[in-house]
Every structure is written in structure tokens, then in C-alpha cells.
């Protein structure tokens, strides 16, 4: 175990993250990069961009509370130290996505009310399920919920957003790139550390599987809200048609997202996340539980 955990040391983190892929960045992107004017000037796109960014802040605030709360529940020093780096990663994500809200014109005094206004209720429920385990200092359930379920979801969501923003919004694409690099490390730790703990505590499996089922339910409900009630893709297409320029393509998971209806995009994301859950949960000895349909 100690050999694997040495790969997650703070020394490695310093060399790969602040002194590696974040070097020279400013709030996660290249200095001087700005949001496209379209996202500020077009009222509909402006509101939907703020709404989408608020969900990222809500998710990252949950991850910050969970990773910091798990430090005191960690059974060994090396896990505590890895979670210390994850805590700072998550705080950085909170900061860069909050900064994006400011860049989009949200006033500092209006930050909390904006978050309260746009936060998806299902995403808040998703976070509550996880934070209940963290509050109980349940390390195994907490790490599965945080580093497999939450981070697994975030990883795919960020990748999809990256595909949609590359080429049209370099600033946000750069921010997402750094965040994805962090999430990859977090998911890796979850899989490696928890596998051994599940083996020694098989009695925890049913409770953790129930948690995964419940979190998956709220996650899928969040996806449904995010895609089916989102007028932004149609507005982008309308503007592209009007401009008469070349259509922007966003390829991800073998499909072109720019050609798809919102329901189909939702299905691609949900399938990708759930497939990853099954693989990762299987690797740590847990069986994926299908959530109830809404």
C-alpha cells in the first residue's frame, strides 16, 4: 500500500500540479484570456452560462467539504496527506469557477444569491447524500462517494464541456483542462486505496452500494434538468446559421455533440458516466446498482 500511496505524495503533487500543468496560469487559464463576448452580450447565453457555472461551483464546494472532512477520518497518514492535496485542488476549483462567475459579470455581493437562484435542487440532494457519510466520518463510503461517484461524474462532465468549448472558448477550455488533470488523480486514488479497504470490510458493501444508487439517481435527475430545459444549444445553432460561417463541431465519445438533440446529448453523458461507474466500482469489488427511474 505504501508504494502505491507514495505516487500520491505532496512532493509529486507539487512537481506535477503547481510546478507542472498549472505553471504560468491565472485562475486556471492563460493570462489575458477572456470569455467570448457572445456569452456576455447575448442575454439567453449569458444566463445559461451563469447557470452552468453555478452547478460547477456547487459540485466543487461539495467536493471541498468532503475531501477536507475525510482527512480526520482517514486511517493512515499517507491518505491524510493525499486528501490534503485534494482539498487544495477542490478549493482551487471553487476559486476558478467562482472567478468565472465574476468574469461573466456577477457582482461579488450577489455571489451567494446567484448560486442560490441557479443551483440545481437535484445536484444539492446528490451532495447531501455524500456529505451525510462524511459527517459520520465514514471513510470508505465517503471516498467511494467522493472519489468514484462525484469525481467520476465531474470527470465526464468536464470532458464533455471541454469538447464543446475547445475552439470557441479557449479561456474556459484551459480552465477545464487543468481541472480534468486534477480529477484524474483523485479518481485514481479512490480506486487504489478503497479496493484494499473494501476487501477488509466486506460488511460495508451493501450500505455503500445503496449510497451509489441514491447518488446516481440524483445525478441523472440533474442531467435531465440540465439538458432538457436548456435553450442554449438551439440559440448557438441559430446564431451560427445567421452568421453563415462554418458549423462548430464538438466530438466526444465518438459522436458530434453539435448535431444532437438535448435528449441525445444527455443519453451520451449518462451512458458514459454510468459505464465508468460500473468499471471503477467493479475494480474495487463493488457491484453497480441501477438507480430507480424518475
Amino acid at each position, binding site marked *: 500500500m505504501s508504494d502505491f500511496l507514495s505516487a500520491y505524495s505532496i512532493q509529486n503533487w507539487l512537481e506535477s500540479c503547481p*510546478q507542472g500543468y498549472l505553471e504560468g496560469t491565472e485562475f486556471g487559464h492563460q493570462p489575458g484570456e477572456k470569455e467570448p463576448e457572445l456569452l456576455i452580450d447575448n442575454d439567453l447565453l449569458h444566463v445559461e452560462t451563469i447557470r452552468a457555472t453555478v452547478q460547477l461551483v456547487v459540485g466543487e464546494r461539495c467536493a*471541498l467539504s468532503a475531501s477536507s*472532512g475525510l482527512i480526520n477520518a482517514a486511517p493512515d497518514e499517507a491518505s491524510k496527506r493525499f*486528501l490534503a492535496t485534494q482539498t487544495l485542488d477542490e*478549493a482551487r476549483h471553487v476559486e476558478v469557477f467562482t472567478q468565472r462567475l465574476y468574469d461573466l459579470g456577477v457582482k461579488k455581493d450577489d455571489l451567494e444569491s446567484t448560486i442560490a437562484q441557479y443551483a440545481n435542487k437535484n445536484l444539492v440532494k446528490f451532495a447531501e447524500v455524500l456529505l451525510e457519510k462524511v459527517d459520520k466520518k465514514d471513510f470508505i463510503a465517503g471516498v467511494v462517494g467522493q472519489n468514484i461517484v462525484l469525481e467520476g461524474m465531474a470527470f465526464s462532465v468536464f470532458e464533455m464541456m471541454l469538447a464543446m468549448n475547445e475552439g470557441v472558448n479557449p479561456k474556459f477550455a484551459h480552465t477545464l483542462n487543468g481541472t480534468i488533470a486534477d480529477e484524474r488523480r483523485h479518481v485514481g486514488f479512490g480506486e487504489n486505496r478503497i479496493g484494499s479497504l473494501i476487501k477488509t470490510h466486506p460488511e460495508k458493501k451493501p450500505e455503500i452500494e445503496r449510497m451509489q444508487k441514491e447518488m446516481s439517481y440524483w445525478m441523472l435527475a440533474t442531467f435531465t434538468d440540465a439538458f432538457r430545459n436548456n435553450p442554449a444549444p438551439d440559440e448557438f445553432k441559430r446564431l451560427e446559421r445567421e452568421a453563415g460561417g462554418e458549423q462548430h463541431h464538438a466530438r466526444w465519445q465518438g459522436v458530434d455533440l453539435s448535431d444532437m438533440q438535448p435528449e441525445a446529448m444527455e443519453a451520451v453523458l449518462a451512458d458514459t458516466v454510468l459505464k465508468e461507474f460500473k468499471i471503477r466500482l467493479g475494480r474495487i469489488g463493488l457491484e453497480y446498482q441501477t438507480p430507480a427511474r424518475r
Partner: protein
Amino acid sequence: MDVHDLEPEQFLEEVHSFEFWFQAVEGYLSGLTWGHKPETAEVPQTDLERDRLITVLCNYCVGETAALEGASGLIGFAPNRQAKVFLSTQVADEGRHLEVLLHRLRDLGVAQPEAEVERRASRSILLFRQRLLELVASRDWEAAIFAQNVILEALEFAVFHSHAQTADPITREVLQGIIKDERRHIGFGENELGRRLAVAPHIRARLGKVKSELDHLVLDALEETMLSIATPQDERTRIGRTYLESVERLGLVP
């Protein structure tokens, strides 16, 4: 632009940010491996010197573990985002301190550093850790910040500063890196409590009680640690006075 020229709200937004931490640590951690320059060579030590150093480093590890657990626990009930983000940078700092100290123990030939820390930890530092975590668990923001970012950090600052003067070159570099972080942590505690005391002076009496309760644990821990590295009596007294004065100078307690 000098951050001290900023308006108070902007100043806090700036100095409590990841970006600020990022710029600060880049300056002094860049090029270091496990807290010291890779080319710094080990100097010969007698068995007694080595054994004393191991004992003192084990006690530092307890202090850093307490700081790691305390800072991470504080995030859960920090009153605003800036405080949460700052404490996250402190969590990573404390995790780094623990890591470099454990690594130093391995360099000194300790095969199982965590077991060695348990074996050699002094009673007073363990009691301090327990009391600090009780304050954090009770979600008493002012008392916990005072115990963590003023008392514990001031103690570590005084002890590490003194030890660095006489330590072997590798241990000195490790301690000097830690001291630079501690300055930032004390600054946060002083600023956070100073602003709260300005609008709620009655908090001062409560902090005074926390200090009276913790002072004897701090001074006992300091005495035990300094004895471990054969610090002369007059120097031990001076470090104890430095700790008391540094807390008093902040003007947070009656």
C-alpha cells in the same frame, strides 16, 4: 501592485486565494525535494545526536498532524469562501510539513516513521492535539482558530526558528521552508481574529480562557522537545518567552 494598497475586502480576497498561495510557495519550494535542496549533503552525527533528532522530529510530526487535522476540520464551518480557500492552502502546507518530516525520519534510518512517532510522542503535545481537535469538533470558530493559527503556529514558529539555528544542513532547510508557511498561517489567524474582536470585544475573554488552558501544555511540550535536542536551560527559557510574547504581541487576549 502591492497587496497592502488594496481595499480591505479586496485585500482578503487576494491574500486568502489559491493564486496568492501559488505565487508565494513557488518562490521558496521550487527546486526542493522533500523540503530541501537535492544537493545538500548529510553531515555525520553521533548515535546520540541522531537519536535526539529523531525524538524531536517525531514530536514535530504530532504537531503537524494536529495542524493538518485541525485546519481540515475548520474548513467545514469556516464563515466564508475566502476563509475556506485559505484553510485549504493551509491544509496542503500542513500535509507537506508532515510529509517532509516523515521523509527526514526515513533519511535518518527510521524504517517505520509512523510507529516511531507514536512511540516517541510526548504526553503534552498529544494532549494539546486532543484539546485542539475538541475545539474544532465543537465548531467554536474563534477558539479553534486561536488554538490552531495563533497558539500552535506561534509555538512551532518559536521552536523551529530556534532549532534551525543549530540543526544539521538538511534539517535546517526543511525547517526554514516550514517557517515560511507558518508566517502566512499566523497572519491569517491574527487578521481573522483581529477583525472579529473589533466588532465583538467580548470574545477576548473567551480566548483568554483558551490560552490559560493551553499555555501549560504548550510550555511543557516546548520544554520536552527542547530537552530532546539538549537545548541549554537559558535558551529553553528564551524560547518559552518568545512564544508567550509573540502571542501577547497580537493583542488578542487580555
